[in-house]
């Protein structure tokens, strides 16, 4: 068991980091916000933590508070202009945010060490820390998801006209979603910095943005199991597909397309819906009630 954990710990830690990023993406998509800002928030969190640890020799807990804080702040600031935009405009504006953060991390060399990234960050967060973080964020999101905020998110995503007719403020809930997304991704970035010895700007670019989006689309965007399942699949899949070598990305892309076509609601949400149908059918058969 210990040997197994040791050899797979890096992969597991990566899956947990991805799960946190997927949570950040999930919370905006659930509220009907097409934000692609997760990569930018994560970069801010990672750099905040790394700079504090290497240049100012601050303790890890302070670095994590800083990454959470900078993510939250960035989410809130971005939300002010963007909570009033919709769909593709939000996507484009947040894409621009990713580019801005990327160019800052590349060009503000005095602080970020530019393209080389920040190296020899003390490893203060291990597998256990990552597990605790995923459980804590997952629990927090589950509480929100079943609260009136989660219900408002669902209504806004499905039908904004209905939402406003019920008195739900769309900008307010888009703001909440942006802030949560920023906070979670910022924390994820900080944890990753303290977990992986080094960070480079290019980790937080277009590839991450697409991967994180794919995780939530593949996993599902209603239940919190969606991002978890998506993150695990898309972290483990490249390892399983190692044998395909250079065709790896092709196979992965094809699998993603097939699953989106046949499971448009995502693996987790489709499975949960099927389970619910079975439970209702079983309950009906038991009581013998006939309902139209």
């Amino acid at each position, binding site marked *: 068991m210990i040997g197994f954990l040791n050899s797979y710990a890096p992969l597991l830690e990566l899956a947990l980091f991805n799960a946190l990023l997927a949570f950040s993406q999930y919370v905006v998509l659930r509220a009907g916000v097409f934000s692609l800002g997760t990569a930018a928030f994560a970069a801010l969190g990672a750099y905040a933590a790394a700079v504090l640890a290497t240049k100012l020799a601050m303790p890890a807990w302070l670095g994590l508070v800083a990454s959470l804080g900078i993510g939250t702040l960035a989410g809130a600031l971005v939300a002010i202009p963007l909570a009033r935009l919709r769909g593709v405009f939000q996507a484009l504006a947040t894409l621009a945010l990713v580019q801005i953060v990327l160019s800052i991390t590349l060009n503000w060399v005095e602080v970020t060490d530019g393209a080389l990234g920040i190296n020899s960050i003390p490893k203060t967060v291990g597998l256990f820390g990552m597990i605790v973080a995923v459980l804590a964020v997952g629990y*927090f999101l589950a509480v929100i998801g079943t*609260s*009136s905020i989660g*219900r408002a998110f669902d209504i806004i995503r499905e039908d904004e*006209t*209905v939402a*406003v007719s019920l*008195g*739900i403020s769309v900008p307010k809930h888009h703001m909440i979603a942006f802030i949560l997304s920023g906070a979670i991704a910022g924390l994820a970035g900080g944890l990753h910095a303290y977990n992986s010895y080094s960070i480079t700007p290019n980790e937080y670019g277009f590839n991450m943005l697409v991967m994180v989006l794919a995780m939530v689309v593949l996993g599902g965007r209603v239940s919190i199991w969606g991002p978890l399942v998506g993150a695990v699949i898309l972290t483990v899949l490249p390892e399983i597909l190692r044998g395909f070598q250079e065709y790896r990305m092709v196979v992965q892309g094809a699998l993603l397309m097939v699953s989106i076509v046949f499971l448009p609601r995502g693996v987790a949400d489709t499975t949960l*819906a099927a389970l619910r149908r079975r439970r209702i059918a079983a309950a009906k058969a038991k009581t013998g009630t006939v309902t139209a």
Partner: protein
Amino acid sequence: MKALTLDNIARSFGGLPAVDGLSLQAPAGRITGLIGPNGAGKTTVVNLITGLLKVGNGRILVGDDDMTEADAPTLARAGVARTFQNIRLIGDATVLDNVVAGFHRHEKAGTLANMLGLPAAHHERREFERKAYALLDRFGMTALARHPAGSLSYGHQRRIEMMRALAMEPSVLLLDEPVAGMNDAEAYSLADIFRDVARQGVAILLIEHNMRFVMSLCEHIYVLAFGRLIAEGTPDEVASNPRVIEAYLGS
């Protein structure tokens, strides 16, 4: 107890008037009818009253408050509820969740309490569910509470829309063709519920295509054709008005 008053409201789309100088009053505790042939502008009127569309001219009053400039969430929070002509439910959510959504405007627990799962939020949720079950019971749908709304029949989905609107505990209720596609028995069982709701002091504006149904429910009826008011009065007055007959049957 608040009445709904429309004072000479108008709205046009690209120069074409959809509603043109409509004045109307729906007193509290009554069911007021708004009828008209297809394309008369009935749904536009509902969208204007609920703030989904801005009026170009005129005033909208809820009680004594001028709500002409208010946006949709503000009007909803002020107690203006509606149903949709084309049913609009959250299909994946359960019947119960769809109805509970109607209570949104009565929420007091606050964002932070909901985020942290504080007891205040739990109590509120349980209270809303209790009230939602009371509504389900009244509409004979308790057994379906945990079903996804989208999996149910058309008649049931119409009822869910109505329960969601009633969950808002509105002072003004706009019913946009609430019995479209229902048979007579279903329609008249709902009519009893509408009368009940009106008796509690709600101002109901019933928008319908079905003349017979409106005649049986309303004391006062407004008739709209091509965005203009062509007649108003008691069911008998309206039914014998030659302009109404012409609008409905064509000349």
